[in-house]
């Protein structure tokens, strides 16, 4: 069942390229229809999900048994919310209207290809399979930014590709290190490595492996100072691609931190939990400060991602501290996982909204706008809701996540939690300023014909925001699923 969710979009991507040229609407409807298939399958998987320790719905086939590579997929309480998020964000992004530059088939094919790769990554339970999807996602995103982006799209896409390729190759070195050090029966099997913990805990090898993989994921996440590819990629990408980049692709890094580093080499991560936590806090504060300094709306949102990913990694690093209490660690890790989902929904919606703004106003400069609330109540309302969720207002998804992360951190690294809280204060200030600049105040004369969100835009954004509210008010259904995985990881 999980394999179908991966394969259907990949095959549909190829099929789309063979469709007639001049039917953009047909391509779009087909792509949207196809994207509903994984969504339905994942919802069905959620219903069937047991929530016990270990992986469920595992499918395994030999691929290259000579070197121990297999096609193996499955899910647990960590991957399930992320694949659900992925499936939802892709459906929303595909239906969101964009300027197709006369290449509709290729655009939707690229999206479906990327969807297959992204789902595959979160479901993969073989390190090489994981890596394959990791790299395929780079190729898909490169073309999305380069062909349908704006501004200096080609350069931004290249920067994105090269930076994250360095990260991915560093990850590959780490994976090879795991393989070569995984005992006599060398293996890439993630379940095997997680269950049997074959990696050495002393000596140089685990340290090198840890940092090779950590570097790969720090670039992908991205944490400061490896984030420099992110703002340009985000700003020049088309809005739906930004949504996928922030909502799905960044999670690949944070997911990798948990799945590979935390689960496969907990003791080594434990030794480095403090430095990783410090890097995370630097990202939190730095990301927030730089976001505050932006005059470009999309760049502002992009930098808040650096800040939010900092929260996630802070939570993961706290969970990795073996000496700390199980309760605090489990709390922090659950918070981190929920933050991944919350950030995907909130920032994903926010990037789509910046796309709506760009489509109407042709610029991201906030000083050009003002008073849009008068003409576009839906756009304004959606953006304000997303902004409040992003700054962590109680009752919305971001709060649930950040509360748990900071509550967990407070028990382990109180001074880091204190410093990190600064990030929340700064984001609150910067989002309020953004809302005030763009949506409040007098409406400039030239925007008097400004139109509100259209039907398709609402169809894409509203479900995401509904989920933000639902998770904020009644998070138990999500927290329970996530807890089933985090309890196992933190030994609780």
């Amino acid at each position, binding site marked *: 069942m999980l394999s179908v969710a991966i394969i259907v979009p990949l095959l549909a991507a190829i099929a789309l390229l063979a469709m007639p040229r001049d039917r953009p609407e047909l391509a779009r409807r087909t792509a949207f229809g196809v994207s509903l298939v994984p969504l339905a399958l994942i919802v069905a998987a959620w219903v069937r999900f047991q929530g016990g320790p270990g992986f469920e719905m595992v499918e395994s086939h*030999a*691929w*290259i*048994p*000579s*070197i121990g590579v297999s096609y193996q997929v499955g899910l647990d309480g960590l991957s399930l919310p992320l694949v659900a998020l992925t499936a939802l964000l892709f459906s929303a992004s595909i239906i969101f209207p964009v300027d197709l530059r006369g290449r509709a088939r290729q655009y939707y094919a690229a999206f479906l290809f990327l969807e297959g790769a992204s789902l595959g990554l979160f479901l993969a339970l073989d390190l*090489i399979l994981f*890596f*394959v999807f990791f*790299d*395929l996602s*780079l*190729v898909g995103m490169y*073309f999305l930014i*380069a*062909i349908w982006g704006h501004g200096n*799209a*080609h350069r931004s896409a*290249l920067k994105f*590709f*090269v930076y994250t*390729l*360095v990260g991915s*190759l*560093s990850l*590959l*070195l780490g994976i*090879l*290190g795991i*393989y*070569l050090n995984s005992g006599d029966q060398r293996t890439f099997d993630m379940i095997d490595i997680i269950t049997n913990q074959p990696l050495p805990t002393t000596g140089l090898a685990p340290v*090198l492996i840890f940092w090779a993989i950590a570097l790969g994921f720090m670039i992908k996440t991205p944490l400061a100072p490896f984030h420099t590819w992110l703002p340009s990629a985000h700003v020049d990408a088309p809005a739906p691609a930004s949504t996928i980049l922030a909502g799905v692709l960044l999670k690949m890094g944070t997911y990798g931190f948990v799945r590979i580093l935390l689960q496969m080499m907990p003791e080594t991560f434990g030794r480095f939990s403090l430095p990783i936590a410090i890097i995370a806090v630097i990202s939190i504060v730095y990301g927030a400060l730089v976001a505050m300094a932006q005059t470009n709306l999309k760049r502002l949102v992009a930098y808040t991602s650096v800040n939010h990913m900092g929260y996630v990694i802070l939570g993961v690093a706290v969970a990795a501290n073996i000496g700390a209490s199980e309760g605090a660690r489990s709390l922090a890790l659950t918070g981190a996982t929920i933050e991944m989902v919350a950030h995907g929904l909130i920032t994903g919606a926010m990037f789509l909204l910046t796309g709506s703004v760009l489509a109407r106003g042709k610029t991201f400069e906030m000083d050009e706008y003002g008073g849009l609330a008068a003409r576009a109540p839906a756009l304004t309302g959606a953006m304000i809701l997303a902004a409040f969720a992003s700054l962590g207002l109680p009752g919305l998804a971001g709060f649930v996540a950040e509360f748990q992360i900071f509550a967990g951190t407070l028990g382990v690294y109180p001074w880091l939690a204190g410093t990190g809280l600064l990030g929340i204060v700064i984001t609150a200030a910067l989002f309020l300023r953004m809302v005030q600049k763009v949506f409040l105040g007098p409406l400039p004369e030239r925007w008097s014909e400004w139109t509100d969100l259209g039907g398709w835009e609402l169809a894409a954004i509203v479900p995401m925001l509904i989920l933000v509210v639902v998770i904020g008010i009644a998070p138990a259904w999500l927290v329970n699923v996530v807890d089933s995985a985090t309890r196992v990881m933190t030994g609780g």
Partner: protein
Amino acid sequence: MVGFVGDILPELILAAGSILVLLVALFTPRRMQPWIALVATAVLVAAAIFAGLDIIDPPGLTFFDSLAADGVGRWATLLLAVVGLLVVALSVEWFRSDDRQGEYYVMVVFGTLGAVLLAGATDLMELVLAMILSSVAGYTLAAFHRRSRASAEAGMKYFLLGALANGAMVYGVALLFGLSGGTTFADVGPGLVNADPLALVVGFGLVTIGVAFKMGVAPVHPWVPDVAEGAPAPAATFLMIVGKIGALVFLARLVLILPDTQLGWRPLVALLAAVTMTLGNLVALRQDDVRRLLGWSAVSQAGYGLMAVVALGRSGLALPSLLMFLVAYAFGTVAVFGVVVQLRGLTDRHSYRGLSSPHPWLMGAMLVGFLSFVGIPPLGGFAAKLLLMGAVIDAGYAWLAVLAVVNSAISLVYYLRVLGPAYLGESTGKRPTMGRLSGVSIGVATVAVILVGVAAQPLLRAWEAVQLLTG
């Protein structure tokens, strides 16, 4: 005696076949010349079939201990014959109006034979013979367009550097013969145990220069970009590949007969690998001429190939990675260079602008080839890099794997300098293309690049017990 002939049947077929092609070419009237490609094809197909049939035979030395009929050698032979076939298919339309094209196919078969002998050589005299055969055929191929200045210049540069390198190699061979009292590896290896270390270093260094030249390894690489740019494009395709296959396999054999402790060849080969891959990639960054860019990329690839040699004897992944690299490199190069051939030698980077819409299949082949070179999964180049990096890490050369990673990222930049405009630029319409047969060649190579990565298992299983004999 029957077994003896059976052992070297592919070599015999190529040797006799090249003379057959030569004779046919001499006596065929000008307008009938294109048919000679068919004769060459028949010879190469026969050689490929017998190389394939031989693969399951037990390994052993043959032909007076001067040739190794072992797994690696036979796989290399099969691959070389297939590359020869693909190059013939690329060449037919390119040379259609050339009334002495028969000789071209003679040289292709000779060149294939030279590389096959090189890959199997376990005798220093055999090395010299194979190297000269392969080089002379190569000089002719590079300069085949006599009236083209670029082609003549490419041939001349190739020849001058080759004469120098091969000369050095012959001195080295003489020195090793003098030190050990024999020319077969079986004699040289044991004979060198008590040799003067300095003379040994000099002897092996000189021989290595010859081998490095054939592979396009720094510092004897400068012919590679010149030949890539100036030689007839199908001939350039051939020269980028076959010498590298033959010489890399030979180098793997050669280092294994060295006393490891005395010389420490491993760090030396690692250094050559590091310098070659880095130099090739850095210079390729600045190329606006696609064929030169491919030439420099071929230099960097030679550096990756050397990684397999570094891991020999220390990692079980060394031989599989060597073969996987050769297969992925050969098909990737045919695919990418084939696109240049198909576009009638189109070489200015800017001329590729927007070609993805009028030529989606052709640019798709180039995309697959380039991404494979970078090492993007699940293509053949990824399988090769995975094994190569695994092998060197296993052998204790993790720094080389890190360098290969950095280099892969650099290489992405210049490949995208070609692919970017091709996919992102505004289309300026169709370009004249070569023809159907070269298209088939590109298609076969591209599919092979994908299959080698996705379905690597049969190959890896076949290579599990593969052997490399050293006398």
